[in-house]
């Protein structure tokens, strides 16, 4: 599995994502945002960070980077694209995912471990999890409050495109368990084709016991397994 980790000016989770991909056996390659062409890659990963210092809006300037045209093309051709944190924001800005990520309702940067409930296990990114499994994963963002208009939200829910939801330790999607005010406690969702996943929490930071959790591993092994399956 050969995956591209796209680095933008201001990305700061690119190395973490790179190492997470390597940990599950992927051949990870850094791709600078000014490069062109994603042929030859099996998946594209958009890392977290503060691309362009979050100027204007998070992800708004990164969307204009040359490589993003190729990312859109790659996604539209059915290629797997994973955007984490700032990467999720870019996917929304680029129109690959609906809605927008606005300022946390606390108006503060929120950094802590949250609990996520796995809502679907039939995606490229979650096949190794169990339905309803509860994950412990760190978040660290100032703009993670997912918003969309009513019709979009209903359509997302009806189509089962919400993949991760913020929950409490008992698995309930309560207001207290919601770290940023996201509608319906949405933490991650996929596009219509199911090949583009955006999520605010950082699975790449939950890959080793020494770091506090290994619950992120499943996401990367799922992706690796899906890609291995398609290739056969």
């Amino acid at each position: 599995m050969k995956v591209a980790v796209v680095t933008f000016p201001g990305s700061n989770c690119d190395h973490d994502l790179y190492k997470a991909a390597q940990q599950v056996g992927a051949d990870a390659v850094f791709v600078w945002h000014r490069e062109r062409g994603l042929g030859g890659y099996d998946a594209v990963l958009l890392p977290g960070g503060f691309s362009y210092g979050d100027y204007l809006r998070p992800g708004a300037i990164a969307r204009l980077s040359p490589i993003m045209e190729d990312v859109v093309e790659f996604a539209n051709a059915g290629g797997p694209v994973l955007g984490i944190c700032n990467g999720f924001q870019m996917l929304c800005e680029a129109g690959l995912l609906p809605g927008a990520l606005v300022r946390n309702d606390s108006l503060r940067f929120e950094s802590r471990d949250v609990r996520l409930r796995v809502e679907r296990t039939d995606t490229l990114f979650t096949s190794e999890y169990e339905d309803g499994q509860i994950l412990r994963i760190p978040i660290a963002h100032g703009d993670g409050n997912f918003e969309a208009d009513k019709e979009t939200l209903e359509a997302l829910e009806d189509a089962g495109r919400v993949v991760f939801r913020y929950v409490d330790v008992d698995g309930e999607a309560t207001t207290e368990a919601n770290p940023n005010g996201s509608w319906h406690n949405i933490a991650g969702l996929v596009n219509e084709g199911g090949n583009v996943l955006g999520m605010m929490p950082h699975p790449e930071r939950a890959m080793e016991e020494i770091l506090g959790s290994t619950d992120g591993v499943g996401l990367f092994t799922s992706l690796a397994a899906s890609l291995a399956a398609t290739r056969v």
Partner: protein
Amino acid sequence: MSHAEGAATAPAVAPRTGDPEITPEVVADHGLSPEEYERIQRVMGRDPTFTELGVFSAMWSEHCGYKNSKRLLRLLPTRAPWVIQGPGENAGVIDVGDGYALAFKIESHNHPSAVEPYQGAATGVGGILRDIFTMGARPVAVLDSLRFGDLDTPRVRYLFGGVVRGVGDYGNCVGIPNVGGEVMFDRGYEGNPIVNAMCLGLMKHEDLITAAASGTGSPLMAVGARTGRDGIHGATFASEELSEDSDESSRPQVQVGDPFTEKLLLEASLELIGSGAISGIQDMGAAGITSSASEMAGRGGSGVEMEMNAVPVRERGMTPYEILLSESQERMLVVAEPGREDDVRRILEKWELEAAVIGTVTDDGMFRVLEDGRVVANIPALPLTEGCPTYEREGIEAEEIAALRGADLSEHLIPEGDLTKSFLLLLGSPNVASKRWIYGQYDTTVRTSTAVRPGGDAGVIRIRGTKRAVAATTDCNGRFVYLEPRTGAMAAVAEAARNLVCVGATPTAITNNLNFGNPLKPHIYYQLREAVLGMRDACEAFETPVTGGNVSLFNETDGRAIYPTPVIGMVGVIDDVSKLTRHAFHAVGDDIVLLGENSGELGGSEYLYVTADLVAGRPPVVDLEGERMLQQAVLAMTREERLRSAHDCSEGGLAASLAECALGDGEDPLGVDVEVDEDLRPVVSLFGESQGRIVVSCTPGETPEVLRLAERYGVPARRIGAVTPADDGFSVRVRDGALSASLDELADAYFGALPRIMDAPALER
């Protein structure tokens, strides 16, 4: 380049048209005494120009020249076999094993933060990051040590909220995890907050680069952000007292930070260093181009010549004086290898930054500045960087402090009302309560190497690819230093070392930040000298040399000085990260063992502050040899994997320490059933802040071995109780008194305190 040609002959320096005439008032405005001005005239062999005066004023300020502290700092131990770089560089560097070196340093941004908390704190973080990556090290962790007045005024809450946001936004954006620090709220800091930021960076030994300008003819390049009019004379400003009208009039002296540019500059700098295209690099921090260029020349034993019109600027019409003294952020000065200027430019371009040749390294030992080819400053570099006059001042203890220390505390030994009530009050005091409100705004997990996050005794960063980890902590109880500076400074070093051993790290070296009042006042100089002596004694006893740091004097508002606050930033090494310990109790049935003994003081305690609004009494004694043995004992226990938790006793005493162990991060609290029989009053037993104590837990099977190890090191130790189910609550009995509370009550007091104070006003708005 035409400006390089005049180097051979001593050029004439004539006053620049439009520059103010130098009068005694102008000299005084530059923070220089008449004697210092005469010294400048002697160094120069003539009157300085206005530009030259500005350069001297910055370099001979306390901030750059350490004129009131240098003689004292020389008393500190700085050597050890593991020290690779001691004081005098951008940061200290130590060997941490497996071919890795750790660069680390602490720096203050007190004055800017008092005026503009958000930018002041943010640029404080920016500056310390640059000090680390200019050594060739990649920053891997930030810590912040903060002090504010009591949180009961809107002004203090504004300062506190702004500083936390500033520290967070900057570090979060650059992507450096915050792994620890401390904060204290006390009226002693009202009006003059302390904002100290510490950074750790890792590198391979061979990547170490220093900031020396050598190689005659090598081009000097300005890289990164452009130079603007912000922060002019920040170094001089930082060396003055604040007054009521400092807020408004001083704003232009506060720099504005841009963490996005910093992140690019960080990547570009490390790439530059790796490319071999440069031989030296230095942050343009305090006193901007002036200090970076003159210090590089001074260290390299060479000279520099710079053309001001070649410096990329943000606005037109800037004078050489302004360009030289601007403290615009996110700028670096590099010495390129001759002929490799284009390589430097290419790397900077990739990161969307600028690089411009602004001068050359010379061999005539002069710091020379040109404007359009005309010499506007020509100063011998060595006297500029090394010739700052240093003073040894008179130091006499203030009588009122001696009186405070001798105060009779007996009436406070009998609690008013219920002990448990006092305890919950203490646990909910901002000084004891959980600091989650703060570090919840800091990214603590980016870079995926944080093994112990904030909230524990010390932050731990593993070194990827090895079994090792580095640990760091910042500590200082300013009340103790205030009441007895020598003891207080020893306590700060001792507490830092205890915090490190509690995570299983061997204390290795320190960086210090000396935050004091105006040293021209004898009682302040007394505090400074005594604190340095206490620090010296403790550092020698623990073999933790000082590899650098920062001095921030004149921390006074309207003549009132802060508590003397020599913040200790200590680093340690963990050989095997799988053996690290954390502070939270682990499992029901584990034994709780207290190492060390209560020496019976209540002086300077949080209990007195909370219940009697009092900072008085004799601070706890520090037994350096006892502390050293305690450190050794805990390290042996960790090495042999005997412990399931370890936690230091500090603010709030044994009772608060036990509560913190019980609560952990709040997710899986455990109960406590403890009995301590000491020949002391209950409040002293429970809340006294006696030094040299650590609470550990272990399985009952290990207890005999833990006690035996303690005995081997001569450390008093006894089993004081057991970890119980959360439903059984928190119960601590001492002679003639007892505490009893549910875990929910503890959690509410401990975790709820800061949110209640900080979020409530926002809701009311």
